[in-house]
């Protein structure tokens, strides 16, 4: 068995244990309705990966503009595609939580606005990729757009919620400090973050390999 296979099985066990722990190891947190606080173990990793994928896409875009290697363009595109998936998951889990806690799936809270705009950015990025025929031009134009979008995200994530009012609970947790937070929560949340990041890395490497094969076949077809 190769190391990659071992890691794959480990990831499976790890994620299964994390999911079980999320439901049986921790107690529902105070101040949240019913069992709703458990969604943090799934919502936060999804949001984190959506942002991480966005970061990878931007770093790959900058590298593409510097080195002009198709490999970097593939990385940026695959990360953006996965980022869109995880942003959708973060949005839906967040909406379920909002329905239970605040009574409505969607109320344009600044945090919801920022994830919705992240979704729009990913969708726009993929739409741009679909609209440019020439591969090299597609790579450089989408790299430029990814960087431009990356510059706007901090305004949404950090500036908008600070200036205007937000219901999102994480600012409350931050001001209270980590001591009042149940240590079991931190353990399971960290485990879940690590597990889902592993899942993302696995999906990402598969995606990059598929795209690299596709590119090679395309070039072979052109050479024939």
């Amino acid at each position, binding site marked *: 068995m190769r190391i990659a296979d071992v890691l794959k099985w480990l990831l499976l066990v790890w994620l299964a244990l994390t999911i079980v722990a999320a439901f049986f190891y921790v107690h529902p947190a105070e101040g949240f309705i019913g069992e709703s606080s458990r969604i943090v173990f799934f919502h936060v990793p999804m949001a984190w990966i959506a942002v991480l994928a966005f970061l990878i896409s931007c770093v790959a875009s900058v590298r593409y503009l510097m080195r002009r290697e198709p490999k970097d363009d593939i990385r940026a595109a695959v990360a953006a595609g996965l980022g869109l998936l995880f942003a959708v998951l973060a949005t839906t889990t967040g909406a379920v939580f909002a329905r239970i806690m605040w009574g409505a799936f969607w109320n344009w809270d600044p945090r919801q606005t920022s994830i919705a705009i992240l979704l729009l950015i990913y969708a726009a990025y993929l739409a741009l990729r679909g609209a440019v025929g020439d591969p090299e031009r597609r790579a450089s134009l989408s790299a430029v757009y990814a960087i*431009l979008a990356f510059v706007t995200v901090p305004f949404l994530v950090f500036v908008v919620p600070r*200036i205007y009012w937000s219901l999102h609970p994480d600012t409350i947790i931050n001001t209270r400090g980590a001591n009042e937070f149940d240590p079991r929560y931190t353990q399971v949340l960290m485990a879940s973050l690590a597990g889902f990041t592993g899942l993302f890395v696995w999906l990402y490497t598969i995606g990059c390999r598929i795209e690299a094969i596709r590119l090679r076949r395309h070039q072979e077809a052109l050479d024939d």
Partner: protein
Amino acid sequence: MWRLLAEALAVAGKDLRAEFRTRVALNALGLFALTVLAAVSYTVGPYRIATADRPFLLAVLLWIVVFFAALAGLDRSFVKEEESHTAPLLRLAASPAAVWFGKLLFNLVLIYALMAMLVPLFCILMGYRIVLLPAFLALLVLGGYTLAVVTTIIAAIIARALTRGALFSVLSLPLLLPLLIFLIQGTAAAADGTAETLASSIRAVFSMAGIMTIVSAALFPVVWTD
């Protein structure tokens, strides 16, 4: 430096002359804004909205009209060059930095002309009273500038894509939404007199203007020459 400025002014001057011959962008922006304003004014009018909601809701309407009018016409600057096949000549004639700056100046003229016409008219038709007028004007100037910077680089991107019309709005809106939020909150604050929110909105728009200027100036040569 002076050469760059002279080239940029030449590019902007050429665009303005060409624009005044056909008035495609001006008509698109101005007539779109007027039509929407007429529709809003007819359906909402000065008395439909409760007094407490007025500062915020009218700010929303104002900026939606400005943004969508901008999205209707500000892509012309680059799309025109590709459609009339003059872009390669412009690439030979001027440096990328001069082209970017010239096109930005052209878009600035368009957006400020639009605002100069639309904002007073909106305030009169909707009975919108602004309490903190000087700060509101600063917000308008900064907001118009940031809007022009973002739409200039996006127009340059979509001019090189296959489908241009819809793509301009699709690509611009996600980048413009934080700006839209700042401008709406700032305008609402200017209308109801909360100087603190207005000041933080102006700071946010100002920092966005600075960052967007630097990033688009740095990235434009890639879009233009590739």
